[in-house]
């Protein structure tokens, strides 16, 4: 989600599932929606059956998605920057970009400072000592008022730097890096190029196949840049559509599951910020054009103060900076891998796991098992036994050696509670409790509330070094030990503290302490008239419920922000307010009523088109989508870098093969190296889900265990012939970190690739099995193989590209 926020201003799927049926071309990269999102995949098939859309699936494997795609491109895992970069080069080289859109809605015309450089794989601003870039080194030329200089013909305009950057990504280079034959690449490039026309639109659908790399953020950004060039952002049938892997991952992200954000994508305060002025100055985007709305940046303080009022109530006053001091200001990265790194260093006492099993998730499950062994205590809240609650008894572990005290707290399953799910398309949909909780199980939020109140009682009784963050927190629920999700939803929505009424929009949030909002992007989902996520005016009456006929269904549930269905939809219309494609309008300027009609406008609702009109992307300081962005840690333009474990040197710059900004945990901590080389581990491997299971929890579902009963790996037919392996045989797949001994499935669906003149094979590793579940004997953990390293910006693990060896047993 880092990459979308860095490019457009918000970290979420830009369109929504139903909208995909409006596309003419669908690029699917790093995703297998037919298997991982079979229900949403319906809309890709509708695009195909209803309007003859072309689906291009670029994937290391020929999957169930490829089976119904028009073209499958066998691409080496993790090389999508080269593919998208090649498409960017093709589009610019053949003048196929949507010129008017690019000038209107992107930062292509802004002039970059002359300190910008890119040489042999390294951008300016790199500090060898820290191994990190200073992203503020990637900036525009500005005038005395801080406004960026605009001159699209300037040699250092974003557009011209972009041209220069991707001129190296020729079809020949694309073939060398990705393995896609150039003729096939060019065939796809010609098709993609047609969508630069106003009457054509393309969507890019992706998932964690792009995210799970050391270059994950840039893989996604390269697709986003292509979409900006072709004028496909903000339009029905277009967009960058991130498919989330669980029913409520988007909701988790919105409510700050990542360590570095607070609810609503407000940044976590940093050390040295002593007051709200410091915080806002360092966190909010700066206005860079006179007509930029810069909505997020301009309102940052209002959202933060309303959050602090929610959390700290009467304690938060103007005199004490609304209790800003009570928020933690973490000095070190606290992302997923970092947690286990800290445990391995012996710096963690305990860990609470809720809704996840660290052992199975990995990466490098064997190292995670060691990390868990170094804890004093581990608490697992889950409806089922997990590979984490049973980690001390994992194959290869000696329970007598594990000192960690493990608490298993039975939690309710989502089917045993109400509450909302927020889907990939940002629709928050309320659900009812289906079954009563079993036995003594409790809701996760009840367990945490009870725990919190007990900790608070200890602080009250015994004092402590800094008790106020805990003592002063509001628990304004009917029964603080058992908050209802309905109460929490109302708290998230926020209210006017003067009238006591719940608010209908975040536009009414104030920075003077008179309003609350637990997550400003959800303000308006629960107005005084009721919980809008319960609305169900859907296909039972399309004429009434979908007045535009575009599938927005505004009275079905509620989507953030303010029930808008397609983000950045001002860009669906030309500068004069007419839709680029009248058959697929997003919003339209109505001169008679002087308002924007259609979807909820992502724009001031009565701002008339014209030369002085506000710029179209309201969430960025530039007022446009960002082709050039300093919102990422590893470069303002995406560049192809090799995975940390790769069989080849980077053909673009062998001297800088991997991204320079990658954080190597083991090396930094002085632990032995756990990365393998091609000499010992000659095959590329990638891990993934199958449609029959959801991660690990469905090992408890009989019907699904029947459909996929046993761990296996997929082996290319040619390699299998070489090694005498047949489907059903047992094979050993090993990386520098661990091994699996499972069955082989031999198939042509994974073929050989020619990478930079060298033949490489890719092995497929489904992830679903472990040493708990109803089908015993399935004890191999796929993530025993994966590397303990993550993306340069987000630190998301590189689950999708690593090296292994393969032996017949």
């Amino acid at each position, binding site marked *: 989600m880092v990459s979308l926020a860095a490019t457009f201003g918000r970290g979420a799927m830009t369109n929504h599932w139903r909208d995909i049926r409006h596309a003419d071309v669908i690029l699917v990269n790093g995703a297998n929606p037919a298997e991982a999102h079979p229900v949403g995949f*319906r809309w890709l098939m509708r695009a195909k059956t209803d309007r003859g859309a072309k689906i291009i699936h670029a994937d290391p494997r020929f999957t*169930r998605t*490829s089976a119904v795609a028009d073209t499958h491109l066998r691409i080496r895992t993790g090389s999508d920057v080269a593919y998208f970069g090649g498409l960017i080069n093709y589009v610019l080289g053949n003048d196929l970009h949507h010129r008017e859109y690019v000038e209107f809605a992107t930062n292509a015309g802004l002039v970059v400072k002359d300190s910008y450089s890119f040489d042999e794989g390294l951008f300016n601003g790199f500090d060898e000592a820290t191994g990190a870039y200073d992203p503020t080194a990637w900036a525009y030329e500005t005038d005395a008022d801080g406004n960026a200089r605009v001159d699209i013909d300037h040699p250092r305009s974003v557009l011209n730097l972009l041209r220069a950057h991707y001129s190296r990504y020729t079809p020949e280079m694309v073939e060398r890096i990705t393995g896609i034959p150039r003729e096939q690449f060019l065939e796809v490039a010609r098709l993609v190029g047609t969508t630069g026309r106003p009457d054509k639109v393309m969507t890019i659908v992706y998932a964690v196949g792009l995210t799970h790399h050391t270059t994950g953020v840039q893989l996604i950004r390269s697709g986003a840049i292509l979409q900006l060039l072709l004028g496909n952002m903000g339009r029905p049938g277009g967009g960058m559509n991130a498919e989330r892997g669980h029913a409520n991952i988007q909701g988790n992200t919105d409510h700050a599951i990542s360590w570095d954000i607070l609810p609503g994508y407000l940044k976590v305060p940093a050390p040295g910020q002593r007051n709200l002025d410091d915080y806002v100055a360092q966190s909010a985007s700066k206005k860079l054009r006179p007509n930029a709305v810069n909505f997020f940046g301009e309102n940052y303080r209002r959202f933060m103060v309303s959050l602090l009022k929610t959390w700290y109530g009467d304690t938060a006053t103007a005199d004490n900076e609304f209790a800003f001091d009570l928020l933690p200001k973490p000095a070190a990265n606290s992302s997923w891998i970092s947690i286990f790194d800290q445990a391995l260093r012996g710096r963690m006492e305990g860990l609470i796991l809720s809704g996840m099993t660290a052992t199975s998730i990995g990466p490098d499950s064997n190292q995670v098992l060691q990390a868990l062994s170094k804890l004093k205590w581990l608490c697992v809240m889950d409806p089922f036994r997990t590979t984490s609650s049973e980690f001390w008894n994992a194959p290869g572990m000696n329970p007598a050696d594990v000192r960690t005290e493990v608490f298993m707290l039975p939690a309710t399953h989502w089917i045993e509670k109400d509450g909302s799910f927020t889907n990939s398309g940002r629709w928050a949909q309320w659900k009812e409790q289906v079954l009563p909780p079993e036995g003594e199980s409790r809701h996760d939020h009840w367990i945490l509330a009870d725990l919190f109140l007990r900790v608070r009682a200890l602080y009250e009784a015994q004092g402590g070094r800094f008790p106020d963050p805990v003592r002063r927190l509001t628990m304004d629920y009917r029964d603080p030990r058992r908050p209802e999700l309905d109460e929490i939803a109302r708290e998230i929505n926020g209210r006017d503290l003067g009238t006591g009424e719940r608010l209908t929009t975040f536009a009414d949030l104030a920075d003077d302490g008179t309003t609350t909002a637990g997550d400003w992007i959800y303000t308006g989902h629960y107005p005084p008239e009721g919980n809008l996520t319960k609305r169900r005016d859907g296909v039972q009456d399309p004429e009434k419920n979908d007045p535009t006929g575009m599938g927005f269904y505004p009275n079905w549930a509620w989507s953030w922000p303010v029930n808008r269905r397609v983000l950045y939809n001002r860009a669906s219309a030309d500068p004069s307010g007419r839709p680029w494609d009248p058959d697929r309008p997003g919003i339209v300027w109505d001169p008679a009523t002087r308002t924007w009609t259609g979807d909820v406008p992502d724009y001031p609702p009565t701002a008339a088109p014209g030369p002085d009109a506000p710029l179209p992307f309201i969430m960025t300081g530039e007022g446009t989508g960002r082709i050039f962005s300093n919102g990422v840690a590893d470069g303002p333009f995406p560049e192809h870098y090799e995975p940390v474990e790769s069989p080849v040197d980077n053909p673009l710059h062998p001297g800088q093969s991997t991204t320079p900004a990658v954080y190597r945990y083991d090396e930094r901590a002085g632990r032995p190296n756990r990365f393998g080389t091609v000499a010992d581990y000659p095959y590329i491997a990638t891990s993934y889900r199958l*449609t029959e299971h959801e991660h690990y929890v469905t090992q408890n579902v*009989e019907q699904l265990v*029947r459909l996929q*009963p046993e761990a*296996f790996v997929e082996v*290319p037919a040619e390699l299998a012939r070489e090694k005498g392996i047949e489907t059903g045989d047992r094979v050993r797949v090993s990386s520098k970190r661990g091994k699996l001994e499972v069955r082989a499935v031999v198939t042509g669906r994974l073929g050989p690739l020619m990478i930079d003149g060298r033949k490489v094979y890719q092995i497929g590793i489904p992830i679903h099995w472990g040493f708990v579940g109803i089908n015993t004997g399935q004890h191999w953990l796929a993530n025993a193989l994966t590397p303990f390293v993550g993306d340069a910006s987000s630190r998301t693990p590189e689950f999708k590209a690593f090296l292994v060896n393969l032996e017949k047993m």
Partner: protein
Amino acid sequence: MAEITPGRAYGFFTDTSVCIGCKACEVACKEWNQLPGNAPAFGDGYDNTGALDAQNWRHVQFLDQVPDRTENSGRGKAWLMMSDVCKHCKDASCLEVCPTDAIIRTEFDTVYIQPDVCNGCRDCVAACPYDVIEMDEHTGVAQKCTLCYDRLQGGMQPACAQACPTDSIQFGPLDELRAAARRRVGDLHDQGVPEARLYGEDDAVYGGLNAFFLLMAEPEAYKLPNEKNAVLPSRNNAGGYLAAFGTAVLAVLGGLLAFRKRRDPEPEPEGGEEG
């Protein structure tokens, strides 16, 4: 969907060109019909169900024809998936051979085995040209897809069709399904997919199938008899008396096969078309 009316002919149109092999149909069928399923067993990685049998009334076939090299392989040609099911034949040999009239044609024009009338003779198992029917080891009666007879009586579409996310399985009145299928195959031909063809939509196979298919390859690729083979013996000659004779032959043969099967420790039920 529209009301389900007794007296009208209903069926399935299974469009394999949009099947994604998710097996939601298999699970929905088992859940609704309370089929406990067979013991988990590794098949070939994707198809671990194996075949239509007493426990599996929907079965997704996977036909992997993907070549080693990268190719422009889409449009469902290289990895074919097809949710197989009882065809609810117009000329239903199972119904014709059933000695106890346990197998009936319902008011929805579907073929249904009444479990309380079935005496477990296995004639239908041998007679079915599609290997759809199997004896249930617990109940001792023959079982197959009921086209969710109970759901239809309650005005609900079959569980598999309701669960199918891509509308690969469509349920409806037969005449409407046939019209939709002809439109769909026409669209595919227009889009440059000449492989697409309908199977069982007209009377060429077993007098017409209430559960018919859009296929992306020859029927034989899906282990389905082609038009030449998919006829009851009687239908090779036009005369009505021969039809009766053929049915009788088939019944006798089916009985013999079933009898042999009872003696045979490892029964190999054979298709009725050989009669």
